Structure formats: structure tokens, C-alpha cells
């Protein structure tokens, strides 16, 4: 299977801080790829670089053999992106927002109408679609953002913490959606702190810590690499990132 994403020797510095440190890996088409890592490990920066929003300091990224820096428009046409805590235009209604996104991505009129109606239904937004987003809860905003990312039928879906703020039903919808997208050949990259979800739906997982790749492979590979074949992904994650010693922190907090 061809690669949807290829990352080689990628580095990103923000002043004196190295956010991404010599990352290299690739993601095959149709995979559901999980990016795991503690807060501030560089996941969001990496995702923004994939969309071309942030320029790498050095190294390269290729999305379906296109460079997001050299050919950002072509790359963005193939990508659907949901940032962490997406900020939407609060003065638009959900329907207007999706209409706007569809127009910006060049979705034809009839397809736009059909897809918006479909997403509003699927994400339980029906009945509130003509209310301004300013009155929406975080979960509803997240659903609108996800619907917006899917509006133009992207070949690659990049989602930063997509389950943030979603209720169990909506979270289940998103999880099923990710699986369905993968069977349809759409590549999905998402970051999450919920390791059970990564374990349940990811074909492959990369663990990033302080901008560097600690480990990459399927869940079984990761457990083998960590020398913990019988352990959960959470235990593997905590061991690999060196953040397993949480007892002292809890005790300190409770003092």
C-alpha cells in the first residue's frame, strides 16, 4: 500500500525550544494512525506542519507525494483538519458555518446541501442547526468542526484530540466514523490522551515525547519493544515516556 504521509528528519524550533526533534516515520493509506504523547510533546505542532500551517525548521513532510509547504493548496484539498479545541465563527449558525466551509473547499451546491443535511442528522445537531454557534456547548462545537473537516470528503483526516468534550454517544459516533473511513480507504491521523481508544481503533501508533519519536508500530509491536507483552497500552505509554511515577505527584497534590 502507498504511503499517505512521509516524514523525514523533521525538526521544528520555536526560538530556543525544540518542539519537534528529528522525527521520521510514514503512514500507509487507509490506516488509522494514533499520535500519543504527554501534553506539550509536539503532537499539535506536528499536525499543523502536516497541513502546512506551520513551516518546519528542517526536514521534510510529504502528503500523497506533495509537499505542504511547496504546494499547500493541493495538499489542503486532500486534508480535513480538526484542531484541538477548534475556534469557530461564533456569529454563524452551524448550517452557515458548514455552508461556508463547503464553499471554501469548492463543494458543488447540490452535494453541499446533501452533505450538510446528512452531517447535521448524524451528529445530532438537527433542530439546533439554525442557532448561532455562540450558544453551543464545547461538544457541539467539536461536532461542527468534525463535520466541517469531513465536508469535502478528504483523503486524509487529521484530528487533534477529536473526542474532546464529546458525550459518550457522540464519541462512539466518531470512533465508528473513524473505522468506517478507514475501510473506505481514508487515512486518519489523530492524537488522543485516551489510550483505550487508541488501543481499540488504531492500526498503528506513534509515541512522541519532547518532540522525539519514542516508538512507532502496532500495539503489539509497542508492547514487545517495551518488554511488556502482557501490559496495557497505558502502562507501556507511561513506561516509555518515563511518566509512570505518578504516585509521588498525587501524594504531593493531596498534602
Amino acid at each position, binding site marked *: 500500500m502507498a504511503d499517505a504521509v512521509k516524514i523525514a528528519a523533521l525538526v521544528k524550533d520555536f526560538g530556543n525550544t525544540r518542539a519537534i526533534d528529528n522525527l521520521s516515520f510514514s503512514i500507509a493509506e487507509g490506516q488509522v494512525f494514533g499520535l500519543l504523547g504527554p501534553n506539550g510533546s509536539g503532537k499539535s505542532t506536528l499536525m499543523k506542519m502536516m497541513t502546512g500551517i506551520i513551516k518546519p525548521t528542517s526536514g521534510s513532510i510529504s502528503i500523497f507525494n506533495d509537499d505542504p509547504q511547496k504546494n499547500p*493548496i493541493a495538499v489542503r484539498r486532500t486534508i480535513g483538519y480538526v484542531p484541538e479545541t477548534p475556534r469557530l465563527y461564533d456569529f454563524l449558525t452551524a448550517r452557515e458555518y458548514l455552508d461556508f466551509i463547503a464553499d471554501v473547499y469548492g463543494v458543488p451546491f447540490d452535494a453541499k446541501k446533501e452533505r450538510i443535511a446528512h452531517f447535521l442528522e448524524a451528529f445530532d445537531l438537527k433542530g439546533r442547526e439554525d442557532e448561532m454557534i455562540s450558544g453551543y456547548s464545547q461538544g457541539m462545537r467539536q461536532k461542527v468542526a468534525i463535520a466541517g473537516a469531513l465536508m469535502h470528503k478528504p483523503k486524509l483526516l487529521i484530528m487533534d484530540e477529536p473526542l474532546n468534550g464529546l458525550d459518550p454517544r457522540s464519541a462512539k459516533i466518531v470512533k465508528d466514523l473513524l473505522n468506517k473511513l478507514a475501510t473506505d480507504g481514508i487515512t486518519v491521523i489523530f492524537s488522543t490522551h485516551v489510550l483505550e481508544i487508541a488501543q481499540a481503533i488504531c492500526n498503528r501508533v506513534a509515541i512522541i515525547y519532547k518532540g522525539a519519536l519514542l516508538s512507532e508500530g502496532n500495539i503489539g509491536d509497542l508492547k514487545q519493544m517495551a518488554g511488556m507483552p502482557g501490559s496495557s497500552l497505558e502502562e507501556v505509554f507511561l513506561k516509555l515516556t518515563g511518566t509512570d511515577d505518578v504516585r509521588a505527584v498525587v501524594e504531593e497534590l493531596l498534602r
Partner: protein
Amino acid sequence: MKPSNIRLLASILLLSQLRLRSDKGKTSKLRTPKGLAIINTLVFLGCFLFVYLILFAIPMEDSLPVRLLSTQIMSFLPIITLSFMILYSILFIIGESAQFSSSEIINYMPITATEFVLASSLSTAFMYLYILTAVLGISLGLAVHFGAVEIWALAAILSAFFMIVGGFVGEIIRATINRASSSFSKRGGRSAIITRAILIVVILALSQLFFNPNLMFRLLQSFAPQMYVLWFVPVIWPSLVVLELVAGNVMWSLIYFISTVVFGLSMMVIGIALRKRYWVPLPVTIRLSAPKEGKYSRVGWLGKLGFTVPESAIMRKDMKSLLRRKEMVRFLALPIIILIPLFLTYTGIEEIEATYFMASILSFTGAGMTALFLSIIAIGQEGPAIWSLYSAPLSAIELFKAKIALPVMLSLIPGIALPVVISILYGLPSLAAFGLTSITMLICALASFTGSYYGSKYCDLEEKPRSTYVRGTGMLLAFLLMGALGLLGGAPIIFYLFMKPFALSIGLTSTYCLIASIAVYIVLLLPTFRLASSSMKQRFSEFTGT
């Protein structure tokens, strides 16, 4: 009620007001309560010395009319400070982001409504203390010169008190507007949005009208003889305290003094009660009417003008932003706000050159400022939601076209209407009217390009309680460049108007000078367009995340 809570909260609220005005959150020593106190002291001393020295230089017999006026000025000090406080409160509330105020951490802290209202009023009063220090400095100059320092001291105490009362009134307005806006918007939908936009424009226009120094002075002059007739109006009471004392009626002065204090305290009680009742401004749920199958946009008439589907989508979105966001509507009110003081300053000029000059100033400023402001905020108003545009398959050219076209199109409305109306009002000949209209339209385009350049270069995408959308430096530079370009293009006409005999002697008629000015403005369009376009491209390619 804990006084320490009030003191702490007042200083935090003051700091937040001081810092949100700074560029990129940089703090300077002047942007601290101490810095503000130094500025206020300097303003007070400067105003005092200025008036005192001027009066010192004038012979006593020539300054007699000023002596009569000085008592009136001192009696009006509390009303002036209260009026300014209310004006600033209204402007602040209109510019305030509802989303921000509903999520402010202060709403969830163990702070009582009394503590909040007192702290907020004190911080607002301290923030705008320079108004009080300026008027007190001026009036002290008068008082020292005319030997009325004790009257001045009383007026100063009453003004300081009314300054804080202004803060209480601000709190009452904030709570009422938040409540009214929520209920109104819930019921009204699309019509509520339009009504609210019109209301904000009217409030701003009235504020501008009422607080114009020219008009205020005339109003006060006409009110002064009838002051006692208005004894039942609470805001007049502090003036009556001063006037009764000057007249030697100590008892009445005391009665009005007590009434003033009771009025101030009742404002505080109402402010606290409203804050208690409407503690957090609720995020408003506004439902817009739509057909059952939904309303979807088509490229429509914008397509016929040559705009692509994404470009027209961005333009429509920005138009909705202007109409629907409370803090954005003020930009639509610009032509009116700018024109009111200019019209009020105009007191019937008889010379034809001066009439042309005034007509041009009114027309160019009204339309040009609208274009400049609408274009300079075009990128910044996206705020953190700009990721939607940056992650979309949009080219810099598409974004530039959409972002420049809307300010140009919107500013062309006053850009055509203003010169036409002004030409009719001033009875300008057809050539002058044509020239005025053409140049105003060109200025709209020039101002849009200039605004777009600085707006994308110095855009401020941060979400603040009162967003400015562009950094102060950008705004200042845009004004300077626009002023320079305006003068450069207008140079031939200015030359003709003010050096007419010489111009005619060398064969330069008004028509030639008009054509020359139009030509210069047209030539200036190209470099400013290029500047704007390159700046937008750079902004688009250098995004580093927000």
C-alpha cells in the same frame, strides 16, 4: 464585604484594562497603577499651570467674563465627569466580547456582588481619572486666579464622587444591556440582529453628538439660567450644591449635598442588585429563521462581479461578522461618528475656498476613515478562528481579493453618498461635485489598500475582552501614511484653493488642478495595492499558529 478583596480586585481589573491596550501584551512602567498616577498628576499640573499662566498674562478687567464663567464651570464639573464616565462605559460595553465576559474567571470566584461592583467602579474611575484631573487642573487655574479655591475644593470632592457614581451607572448599564440583549436576541432572531446593530449605531451617534465639546458647551450655557428649574434631576444636584454655596444658602447647599450622596449610594445599591441578579452574562442562543430544507448560499451577484465561490463565501461571512457581532457594529457607525463633530464644528463659512475645503474634509474623512478601519480590521477580526482559512485550500490572492473587496465596496456607499449629499447641501457647482465624488471614491480605494497593508502586517488575532484587531503601531502608521497620501494627491487642489491668484497667473485653472489631483490619486493606487497584496501574501505564508 472584605475591603482587602475590593482593593485586590480593583487593582487586578485596572491592570487588565491597562494591559489589554498594550501591543502584544508588552508591559511598560507607564502601564501600571503607579504609572497612571504619575500621568494623572502631570495632566493635573499641566492643565493648572496652562490656565493659570494664561490668566496671569491677561489683564484683570479683560478676564471678568471668564470669572463669571468659572463658577458655572465649577458647578458643572460633576456632570461633565459623570457624562464622560457614562460615555466610556457605553463604548467599553459595546466593544466587549460577550464570549469573554461570560467565561471570565472572576465569575466563579468567591467574590460578592458588592465587592465586584465597588472594585469595578473604582478601577474604571481610576482608569479614566485623567478626565477628572484635566478638568480639575483647568478649574483650579481659574479658582486660584479668581480666589475661589474653597468652591473648587467642594466641586472637586463632588466630581470625584460622581466619577465613582459614573462607574456604578456603568455597572447598571452593563447588567441591563446583557440582560436585555439576551432576552431580545432569544426572541427576535434575524430581526433582532439588525435592530441591535441599528441601536448600537444610534447609541454611538448620540454619544458622539452629546459629548461633542462644542455642543456640550452650548447646552451648558443654555441650561445654566434654568438650573433651579431642574432641581428634581439628580445629576443636577451637585451643581446646585456649588451654586447654592456661592449664593450663600448653606442650608440648601447641605440639602443638595445630602441628596447627591443618597443618589450616589442608590446607584451603588441598584448596581449591586443588578449584578447579583444577572451575575454572569449568559451566552445567548440566537436562532435564525430558515426554510425547512435550510438556506444555502450561492455565489449570486458577487459571482457576476467576478468573485469565485470561496471569495464570495469569505465576503458574506465578513459581512455577517460586521452585522452580528456587537463589538464589530461600531465600525459600521464610523461615517456617522466621524461626521457629527465635523458638522458641528462647521459654523457657516462664507468664503468659497473654505467651503470647498470643508466639503472635501467631510467627504474624504467620512468615507476614507470607513475604508481604512474596515480594511485594517479585516484580518484581525478573524481572531483564533483564522485556522479555518489557513487550513483551507485558499490562495493568498483569493484571501486578499475577498478581504480587500468588502471594505472597498462598503466604503463606496458613503464614498458616493457623502459627496453627493454634501455637494447638494453646500450648493457646489457640477465640476466641483464631480471632482469631490471622484476623489472620495479614489480615497476609499487608497484607504482600503493602506488599511489592508497595515491590517495584515500588524494584525492582532488574540482574543481579548475588548479586541482591537490591529496593534496600536499598525493603526498609527496607517493613519500617518493615509494622511500623507491624502495630502500628496490633494496637493494640486490645495495649491489652487489657497494660492488661487498665483495658480491662475501661471495658467492653472481649477479644472487642471482637479485633473492633476485625480491623476495623482490614480497613480498612488498601484503602489499601495502592491503593498497590500504583498503584505497579505506574507501574512498568509508566515502563519505560526495562534
